[in-house]
């Protein structure tokens, strides 16, 4: 038995007002996740009374910024530090920012490496 899940696309500018309205509604922040395709797709998942909703926004592969939602949901600091460490997304306004040292890894943004360049033999 599988539950039905909703995925709603939003823009980066709508993120903070949307999240504030979800807090007033009593929704719980479930997770923040990122997938790398041709662009970086960031998913914000919320849950209330076993109903699962998902808000999706897109970012450029390199050099884009994301506003933090720790003003509204403080527990999001762990997910935003992870986004910074693994994907190199610059999150602005994180209340507990570890500055890229949350996971103690040597490489920067290992999940978001640019594709290998083809080397033509001379």
């Amino acid at each position, binding site marked *: 038995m599988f539950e039905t899940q909703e995925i709603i696309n939003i823009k980066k500018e709508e993120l903070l007002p949307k999240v504030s309205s979800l807090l007033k509604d009593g929704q719980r922040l479930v997770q923040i996740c990122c*997938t790398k395709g041709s662009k970086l797709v960031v998913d914000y998942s919320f849950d209330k009374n076993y109903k699962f909703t998902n808000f999706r926004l897109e970012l450029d592969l390199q050099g884009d910024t994301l506003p933090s939602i720790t003003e509204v949901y403080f527990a999001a600091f762990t997910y935003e530090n992870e986004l910074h460490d693994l994907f190199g997304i610059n999150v602005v306004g994180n209340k507990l920012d570890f500055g890229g040292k949350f996971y103690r890894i040597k490489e920067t943004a290992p999940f978001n490496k640019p594709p290998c360049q083809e080397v033509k033999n001379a």
Partner: protein
Amino acid sequence: MPKRTVIPFGPHHPVLPEPIHLDLVLEDEKVVFAIPNIGFIHRGLELLCEKKPFQDMVLVAERICGICSLVHGIGFVNGVEKIMNLQVPERAELLRVFWSEMSRIHSHLLWLGLAADAIGFESLFMHSWRVRELVLDIFEETTGGRVIFDAIKVGGVKKNISKETLGRILKQLDKIEEEYKQIADVFVNDFTIAHRWSGVGVLTKEQAELLGAVGPCARASGINFDVRMIKYGGYDKISMEPIVETAGDCYARALVRVREVYQSLDQVRQAISKMPEGGEVEVKVTGFPTGEYFSRVEQPRGEVIYYVKGNGTKFLDRFRVRTPTFANVGPLVQMLAGCDLADVPAIVLAIDPCISCTER
């Protein structure tokens, strides 16, 4: 203004079972703020999905954690079966429920032992783990392993359990319940345990909802939420109600876990009685997964989310795990503010930390 000192706690500490580091900011023995620090065992398992075929990723998912290994496998397989539109046979679903609930019993018994050891009650720790050995014997008899079971695959389960073995297991369960009653009696009625844990690490219902607590941590604060109520994979035949307490302190969390063991024993008996006679335990898998799905499963520690995304080849596009301890780090920071230094081990253990799950 009193002077503030910073004391490091962990990652090597005699009371901690897992490597978590906390920087405790103290004012005269009272903790003002705690800064969590993880990252000692990050293995980057999520990136392996690009190198291993999706059927072998079950083996990787099971090895994220040792205590909750089977439920990780079930969460992953649930997601892949949804995006491939596979219908698992009924006997396989009930076998998965049987193994999940036995997993929950063994995980809670392990936690009860560690929590008793943290407050110095060594004989209770040893007795809890002795009852746990009886549960691990059942696992070895049915799956072949004590910690990593290797029993789940995409499309069903790998091993069947015969009727005689199920009858023998029912008798073993009676023996386990009888021995467990003596230990549960101590946790519920003993004066020293109640005195040590009551009023420590309080999390009110509003704070728990705002910070997104999951699992027994949230249910001890009065939130009525258990992912098994969405009735995924076999749980539609099992009747249950979430166990909720209202006090919100460490004692309430212990009581929730003690009562969940009784509930799991009852669910195992229900699963065995409802298992159909005969029937297949697996369905043939053809083709490759396409699509995406968020699979939600109830681990012993709370709600775990699996995000799988397939693109039509044998390698998955993305495999993302969000484990319950990751969600409970925020509430942990809230619980530690204002407590005594001597209560810090009890509070850290009360959220049941599983750092190898958190960091993958």
